[in-house]
């Protein structure tokens, strides 16, 4: 968690932009002076020009993919929350669900995605399922960890205050789970982008993953890199947005400690 909040603080642009510029410069020099075939590895300026030329196409495909990803994350959050609470509250649910959840993450998504499309049809639904499948696991784990971290003495204290289990859950566990949910959502934001590409590769007629697949097949390499660039930028934007929401929603989890009063 500290790593992730450090990362989000590291998203303050200047150092990242400098590093990016150095990286792009080195790449450009490598392609220009290293005798690399630009068809195999296009130089950054070719990618930039593809980005510019295809901006309308990229934008409309981004909208499709972004919609899938946001919907997928929403499904993942809902499912992860319900499952974590069930696992937290019931030992039977834990023993029944946890092994299956872990097993679900060993499914090779690349292979499963076409099978899902075969089964569920050529529609939005299988793509949603694939994205949710890769996004929900980090959410379950971080949410569950946050629930398990609730001090058992606090639950006892609430019992001496005659709180019902539901009120204890609402007053103690529900707020305590938010930092874990946000950490999971940040991980999910990144994983879901990869999930979306797999899903669209397996069967879609629109979207950046679809565009990427077509571009690679037709050896439109700069165009393929342009699609990858847009996907990366979208992942960064999504991560930053969740970090921002996190600061608003769970300020206590960030060490915004004032001077203790005497």
């Amino acid at each position: 968690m500290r790593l992730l909040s450090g990362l989000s603080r590291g998203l303050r642009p200047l150092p990242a932009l400098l590093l990016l510029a150095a990286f792009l410069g080195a790449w450009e020099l490598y392609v220009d002076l290293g005798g690399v075939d630009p068809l195999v590895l296009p130089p950054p300026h070719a990618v930039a020009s593809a980005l510019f030329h295809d901006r309308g196409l990229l934008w409309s495909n981004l909208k499709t993919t972004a919609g899938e990803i946001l919907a997928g994350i929403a499904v993942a959050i809902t499912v992860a929350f319900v499952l974590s609470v069930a696992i937290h509250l019931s030992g039977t649910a834990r023993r029944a669900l946890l092994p299956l959840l872990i097993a679900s993450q060993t499914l090779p998504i690349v292979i499963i995605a076409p099978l899902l499309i075969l089964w569920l049809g050529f529609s939005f639904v299988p793509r949603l399922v694939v994205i949710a499948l890769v996004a929900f696991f980090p959410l379950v784990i971080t949410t569950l960890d946050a629930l398990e971290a609730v001090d058992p003495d606090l639950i006892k204290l609430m019992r001496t205050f005659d709180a019902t289990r539901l009120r204890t859950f609402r007053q103690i566990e529900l707020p305590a789970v938010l930092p874990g949910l946000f950490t999971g959502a940040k991980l999910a934001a990144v994983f879901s982008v990869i999930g979306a590409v797999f899903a669209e590769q397996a069967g879609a007629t629109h979207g950046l993953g679809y565009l990427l697949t077509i571009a690679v097949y037709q050896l439109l390499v700069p165009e393929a890199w342009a699609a990858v660039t847009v996907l990366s930028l979208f992942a960064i934007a999504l991560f930053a947005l969740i970090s921002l929401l996190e600061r608003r929603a769970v300020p206590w989890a960030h060490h915004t400690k004032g001077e203790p009063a005497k």
Partner: protein
Amino acid sequence: MPAKGVTTTTIEAPAQEHRPATGGGSVDIDQASRVFRGRRGELHALAGVSLRVRPGEIVAIVGPSGCGKTTLLELICGLQTPDEGSVQAAPAALMPQRDLLLPWLSALDNAGVALRARGASKASARAQAAPWFTRLGLEGFESARPAELSGGMRQRVSFLRSLLAGKPVLALDEPFASLDALTRAEMQGWLADMLSAEPRTVVLVTHDVEEAVLLADRVVVMSARPGRVIADLQVPLPRPRHRTDPDLVALRAQALRELGVPG
């Protein structure tokens, strides 16, 4: 099981002069034993402990670490049941050793947690807790988060939270153990004042013998595991008490002797 009696107040409309459960209920523990069975065999936490606390009485329980003091408090609060013997206690609210304040709530809302636990609205809980902030020297810190409060302030908010639970019995589990010596002395004086203004039946667990004789009407000394009562000392000293009072010092020395500490 503790008698699930009727609490002596109804917490409804915010009263200007809110007085939950004055006076207090009694605690009657008869030959209670508690055994924890773990992987490494049995752990006898309590062995035939009997304890009677009259309504309004303040009883301190002192003893070495692992004498089952916390188990005793949990029996009183109904969080555990004895394996043998019986526990009859009026409803009791716990004040835990660590303050356990919720980091996402303001001091005022933390103080109202017990009220909210019984279904009071946020506004009503605030209205009931707010007048106490002046009395507890917490005025101006209503909206502060726990991280912004000092250790002594946090313990006062924690105390208020348990007080507002409106139970006739208060079970205090080493309430000032985590504080530095100066703050602790200050808080002991403060608690003595609070309890004379708001009389309750109090069971105070502590390992600080001076704290026990300073605050309590009776000091019950317990042995190391398995915990049993080895001495029951009356503290017939008038209040306010001073830690330098020769009678108090003598009682403190006596309690320490019972605990096997020379001096």
